[in-house]
């Protein structure tokens, strides 16, 4: 008898034959590379991956992945992915989206996907600008930003994606940066492993229309002071010398210098299951005084919509038996004409 030897999948197995058409140096390349790197190690067959996207630079992503892919219409990826998952819950469904796609035109679908908690992985490329339409402000652009459509400065308050997701009571919320490839891999793995909707924001540099948006978080000189690496169960310290920490004064967070006055015991310890803590951390973004949190903000387990839907169908089938079409058509008051 022949035994089928399946060769382990490699990164090359997930690269399609399509030429990648992002601008040279775009942060999207890094995300594509890390995704192609971690997909083979997840233990799934290639045919069971589905990548769904909307519209925008990020949404070209499915074309470059040798999986099943759907490049859909602006903002609707979350809704289309929901249909895919409910049609076949065995599939590993990934939504690749951007700040405009997920939070502006598709905000409604994103918020409801998170609320329902389908077992779908959302990767949101946040470059804080509209790239594909060539440089208008996005819902995550900082207030007052000068862009082509806001020559005198934008008037919108920005959305902070983790806060948005917390508002919907998402069950997994994380953030990474395009330049931090190992961290990104870890976040992608955690997203995959999370049962329920995972919401991963990736800070991604658009070097044509918003270059340097996250420079302070990636530059060698500044990043230690500007990034707060979140690790579950660990005190929240940062800085080149690891000498700064987040301290809670009553219910107000403040930054303390470790040394004579404060010790590590005074530093807040991260707990991924603490909703209030996650809310507080998410508010650090867009506040100059605080470092920007990177890592898993929040991760809890809740039943998924897809499991509940199939459970409900099974329960009804168990109670009522499999439906009979003839009986269905003949239900209710019937009469016979001879």
């Amino acid at each position, binding site marked *: 008898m022949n035994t089928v030897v399946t060769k382990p999948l490699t990164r090359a197995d997930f690269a399609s034959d399509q030429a990648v058409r992002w601008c040279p140096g775009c942060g999207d390349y890094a995300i594509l590379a890390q995704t192609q790197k971690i997909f083979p190690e997840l233990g799934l067959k290639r045919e069971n991956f589905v990548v769904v996207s909307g519209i925008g630079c990020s949404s070209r992503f499915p074309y470059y992945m040798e999986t099943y892919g759907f*490049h859909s219409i602006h903002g609707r990826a979350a809704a289309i992915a929901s249909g895919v998952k409910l049609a076949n819950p065995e599939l590993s469904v990934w939504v690749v989206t951007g700040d405009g796609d997920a939070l502006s035109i598709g905000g409604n679908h994103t918020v409801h996907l998170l609320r329902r908690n389908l077992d779908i992985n959302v990767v949101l490329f946040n470059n804080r600008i509209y790239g594909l339409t060539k440089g208008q402000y996005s819902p995550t652009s900082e207030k007052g930003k000068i862009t082509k459509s806001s020559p005198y400065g934008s008037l919108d308050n920005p959305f902070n994606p983790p806060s948005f997701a917390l508002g919907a009571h998402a069950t997994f919320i994380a953030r990474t940066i395009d330049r931090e490839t190992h961290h990104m891999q870890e976040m992608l793995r955690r997203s995959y492993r999370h049962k329920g909707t995972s919401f991963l924001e990736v800070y991604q540099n658009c070097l044509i229309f918003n270059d340097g948006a996250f420079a302070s978080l990636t530059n060698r000189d500044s990043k230690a002071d500007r990034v707060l690496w979140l690790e579950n169960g660990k005190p929240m310290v940062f800085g080149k010398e690891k000498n700064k920490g987040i301290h809670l004064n009553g219910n107000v967070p403040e930054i303390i210098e470790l040394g004579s006055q404060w010790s590590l015991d005074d530093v807040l310890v991260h707990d991924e299951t603490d909703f209030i803590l996650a809310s507080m951390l998410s508010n650090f973004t867009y506040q100059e005084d605080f470092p920007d949190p990177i890592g898993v903000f929040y991760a809890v387990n809740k039943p998924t919509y897809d499991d509940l839907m199939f459970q409900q169908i099974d329960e009804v*089938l168990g109670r009522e038996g499999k439906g009979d079409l003839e009986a269905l058509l003949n239900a209710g008051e019937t009469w016979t004409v001879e």
Partner: protein
Amino acid sequence: MSESTVIKHVTDAVIRFAGDSGDGMQLTGGRFTENTAILGHDLVTLPDYPAEIRAPAGSLAGVSAFQIHFSSNDIHTPGDEPDVLVAMNPAALKVHLKELHPGGIIIVNRNAFTKRNLHLAGYESNPLDDDALNRDYTLYAIDMSSIAAEACKDMGLTSKVVERTKNMFALGVLFWMYDRPYDTTIKWLEKKFHKRPELVEANRRVLVAGFNYGDTYEIFTTRYKVAKAPLAPGNYRNMNGNLAVALGLVAAAQKAGLPLFYGGYPITPASEILQTLAGYKRFGVKTFQAEDEIAGVSSAIGAAFAGNLAVTATSGPGVALKSEALGLALMVELPLVLVNVQRGGPSTGLPTKTEQSDLFQAMYGRNGEAPIPIVAPTTPGDCFYAAYEAARIALKYMTPVIVLSDGYLANGSEPWSIPDVNALSEIEVKFATEKNSEEHFLPYLRNEETLSRPWAIPGTPGLEHRIGGLEKENVTGSVSYDPDNHHKMTELRAEKVHRIANELAPLEVFGAQSGDLLILGWGSTYGACRAAAERMQGKTQSVGHLHLRWLNPFPNDLGEILTRYKQVLIPEINYGQLSRMIRAEYLVDTRGLNMVRGRPIRARDVVNKISELLG
């Protein structure tokens, strides 16, 4: 029975129950309909209710009505004008009196003709005291509320509860008047209120009181008897259009061997389709009540990609929201059924009223050259077959298909000959399982006959591929901006829809096969057109009737048929949409009968128009 009462045999009767939204008129009509169906009459019903759940009590806006036409003949419409009007309050009388047949019967609840209700209805004096009403009609003013109270007086029920049984009194009177038993209604009450035996008893008492009132009091001069209709042998049930759509979709999914996925958002008058399917979990039906219309159709497209029979239903405003996604469905060439239960438009329009004004929206309401097949059911029961056919064509040709139902079909009902499951046409679905070329899987390599592309669903090894809304290169499915390819794909998408015409059954014209005038209709005007054509037979002028089921593509034999008549009349509940399509396609100088009143066109309207045209 009083000795002075005579029994009159009639072939037809049209009864309209009208009252306040809270008076239970839809329920009363429904019970009378069930009773009529079981007695073997042919019937057609027309519910007519306000959009507000409870408009202010007693107001003109709050009047809800239900009309039933039943007959010993094969009939097609809910009747032009009622023979009997049941008016439970002054507002109902005010709204509906003008449509009552001259000399018709009016039965009113006199207790409701209070000063306040008269004022709300805009009556300056009580019309029941007016000689005109007694002169022009046969008026029966009965103290229904008082009699109901008397019948239930020893039961210890609140007066509010007792007052709500008065519709049963009216029903009892009508049962007596049309000489029929009330047992099925009592059985129904027992089932509906099985947890509230006191309500069964109260309603039963008042129903019987109504029947006995007719029997005992000598005020009614006539009872009517309608013979059974010569319906074709078979098992029947009463069927409305929304239920028929749901059943047709389940039947199609079962026949195709696919799970049914329904993604949608509640909207009047289509919500019952979602609600009905939500109860069919034993058939594995998945219903997803999405966050909006767009997510409804988008989730369905996702489910289609992954191999389910995907469906969404809505009404005109919902179709407007779904339009971009419909374009996507046709671009990625996935099967999808969209049911539009049309209502009065534009914008929010008349949510609970019927209209046929979304034909252009279905034909042209998308960006780009975006042809989608369109099928329109003709009667409530026919909605079953239209939904079934839509699913079959969607799966066979890998295309979205639009079903154009409407409010009248959705809520109207008729006796439905229950189909034999085995006699339904087969629906064959073959997922791609292997590569269709040496090297790659080619997602746009087409079937030569239907031009459909292969359906390779996620989870199938070796067929990984990408689809999307960007233009595709034919065969390979790669993104392509090539000018010649785009032109070719535009042609292919149009040709695919045209080819559906090759499998349509030859058209059948009723009445004159050529001659003076052809009535050309589509959708729910079927009954009015056919009844009008029947009335024109045997006259000097030759009139035929042809009803279109497929609006896109037009059947291959349509053009030839149109040339056989001197005139073509197109009655539509819109401003001439099919007319313009026919004019554009066949250069025929059509005449329209266009009544956009939120109500079905009546047979009489069609006959009058024919007389005007033929002189």
